[in-house]
């Protein structure tokens, strides 16, 4: 596989990652969100492996396998179990309507391209064209956290943000040192467990997973 082909393949995968990020913004159903998140993880994992091959960085294969295991299998599974246990399969409510969110997302992508244009000119990596996509994924994840009301969707937004960061790391510098990546992977896993515990607590306290309810915690004066 020649390098230019790898770079093109990577660009395609980046486009798919961005597409799933928009999908996450647009999706109303919680299972749909979960599937889209798993797909994003899969594309990320393949992209990491491709970059690893193209750049000859063999530790990226390990990251790729870790991503596959964690973000495609384990985390969606944990969230799936949570959704069944908490009986929250119904439609997800949004705070801002979906077309408006999409428009904001597009603005963010343009902003990211604008932001990373000086880096693209300076960088010599094969992956340099995808930095903007990575940054856009991070921002879209944050936007998703802002526009959704439900706690589970916020977690998915958070994890999508993490995907974006990971993608940024591989595309900007051919990945972080393996130790750091292992640490991050462990953090994500533990975070998922903690979220699970918190969901149960939030639900027992408020009888709902709607984070709007938490406004009641604010001190009145």
């Amino acid at each position, binding site marked *: 596989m020649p390098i230019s082909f790898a770079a093109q393949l990577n660009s395609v995968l980046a486009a798919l990652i961005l597409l799933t990020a928009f999908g996450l913004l647009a999706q109303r159903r919680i299972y749909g969100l979960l599937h889209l998140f798993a797909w994003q993880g899969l594309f990320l994992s393949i992209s990491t492996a491709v970059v690893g091959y193209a750049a000859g960085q063999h530790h990226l294969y390990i990251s790729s396998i870790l991503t596959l295991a964690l973000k495609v299998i384990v985390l969606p599974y944990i969230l799936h179990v949570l959704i069944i246990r908490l009986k929250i399969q119904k439609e997800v409510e949004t*705070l801002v309507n979906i077309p408006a969110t999409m428009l904001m997302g597009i603005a963010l992508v343009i*902003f990211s391209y604008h*932001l990373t244009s*000086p880096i693209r000119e300076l960088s010599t990596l094969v992956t340099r064209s995808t930095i903007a996509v990575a940054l856009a994924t991070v*921002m879209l994840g*944050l*936007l998703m*956290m*802002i*526009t959704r*009301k439900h706690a589970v969707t*916020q977690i998915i937004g958070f994890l999508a943000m993490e995907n974006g960061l990971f993608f940024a790391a591989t595309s900007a510098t051919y990945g972080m040192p393996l130790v750091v990546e292992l640490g991050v992977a462990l953090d994500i896993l533990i975070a998922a467990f903690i979220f699970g515990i918190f969901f149960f607590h939030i639900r027992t306290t408020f009888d709902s997973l709607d*984070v*709007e309810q*938490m*406004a*009641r*915690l*604010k001190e009145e*004066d």
Partner: protein
Amino acid sequence: MISPFTLTTAALFVILLALIMVPLLSRSQRLLIVSVFSLTAVASLLTLTAGIWTVWDGITESYIILLGLPDLPFHMRLDPLSGFFLTVIGALGFMVSVYSIGYVKGFIGHRPVTSLAVFYSLFLAGMFMVILADDAFFFLISWEVMAAASYFLVMFEDEKTENRRAAFLYLVVAHIGAIAILLSFGLMAGSATGFEGFNGYTFDAMRHATFPPHWAAVAFFLAFFGFAAKAGVIPLHVWLPEAHPVAPSNVSALMSGIMLKTAIYGIVRVTFDLIRDFPWWWGAVVLIFGLASALLGILYALQQQDLKKLLAYSSVENIGIILIGIGLSMTFAAFHNPVLSALALTAGLYHTLNHAMFKGLLFMGAGAVLHATHERNMEETGGLIHRMPWTSALFLIGCLSISALPPFNGFVSEWLTFQAFLLSTALPSTLLNLLIPLGAALLALAAALAAMCFVKAFGVTFLGQWRGHHRPHIHEVDWSMRTGMGMAALACLCLGIFPTVMINWMDAVSVMLVRGKLAESAGAFGWLWLTPISHERASYSGPIVLLGIVGVVSLVFLLLHARRRTIHRGPLWDCGFEKITPRMQYTATAFSMPIRRVLGFLFHVRERQEAKRHLVHKAFIERLRYSLRVRDHLWDWLYQPVADISFWVARRVGRLQQGRIQVYLIYSFATIILLLVLLR
């Protein structure tokens, strides 16, 4: 090999040992008290020895301790100035530790004393380390250890709202002060080696730096503000009369006796040792704050009914007197007059030592009264001289010393301060020549008011008859408390009788700081006579005054008792009114009435009288109720507005907090986007 440095390190290790022993012994509280306070007494004794030794030999040695952050090791230094303050802390620390063995036992059965033992040891260790520190980093860490430990000590009886409030106020003021000190050190370190590196954090680097005059002034006033907050200089004194009374009395003795002195140490260290070169008006500012504290402090003290609160306000006064000495010394030093500068500095430092001794003694005495009667309000006590003769006699010595009466120590240091004042005509500035004598007059007024204040404290508490509604079983305190107080009283007497020896010993400090020698002129006539500058001007002899007083008193005693029949005990003449009760005695409130009438505008006085009249005729009053509340104006003028503004700002800022996660996320999102746009 034994040297002062090994002794102080040993002292710190002894305190560490005490801290290690606490968890092992917390089961048996009695044993815990005896062992921990004995160990702190040993540590204080070691420090005392090291301090005396350092000053005596004029040692200046620095050490690098391999603790602290990487590349920022702790520095320690022993020099005559730190030696002098180690002596003060060691001496009072030893006395109070001995006293604590008995005093803290009073808590057994009421509450666990483990925390008191832990924080007492930490407090003492913190004060030792503040004095030893030779870099800003170690100094501030020790300073915070001291502040935090004393916060917990003030909080010791935390079930009372009053105590929690006092402790919080103390913490706030202490930290505002600490921030100012931190900024001041930062400025000095930056001027020393530039703001790029951290190398300027040692005091040694600051010592060798030359500061631009404006920045030096900013650094000095920041440091002065910070240390003044700790020392309780008016108007930063508000925490002091709240925190000292509610702390356990042994802790009040330490706080008032030596913790305030660490702030004096800081001022002297920063001014004379680190900045070194200063204009005369800095000294004038210090002098003015000193005068204000001395006069207002004692006036507020006179209005107090709470014995410990009275003592706390009196500490404000004494800190003022010490600052007067230091301010004069700075002024003289700025005009290059080393001998007079040394005189004023010696007066200030001597008063530091003296105040530690007599205020320690008085707080221990108040603690003994509290221990025996569980009463802090003077209006509810009285007549204790019959039940507690030892405590009364020792407390009286403390009162005489603090009222600056010969032959006790307070007289010597205040007399030296007056000498410094009166010699200020040597200054080349006419303005100062006119104004400084006014300061002397104010100091004289403060000294007279102090005497009045302590006549009240002693008279109302110990003389007359018991005023309280119920009469508790009052007993004399045990040997350890009496030993602690006795040692302090003895120190008061000795410091008053042998000032020449002391000044000879302390000379190393003024030689180091202002390059002026006092010992030659002060001790020109041997140990018997103290002649500060020359014997034509003024001289004082403690031993001769003591002999005179003892002679007169014994003569009178002999004359009265030679004929047994001269003393009668008979019924009191009751002016024809038959039902005299102890409630009709002269009260503390009544005693300070004249001052309230004359100088009432200085206080916030609220006086109320309610008469319940008899039904038969309005001329017959059945019951009269009198209530009085005296506060200082400064709270309303200075602190209340600041508190109101900060609450107002907090409420405004609180609106940002919507309680909705999305809004918080938008804040971060907007911040990120904004930063990306700006810093692209």
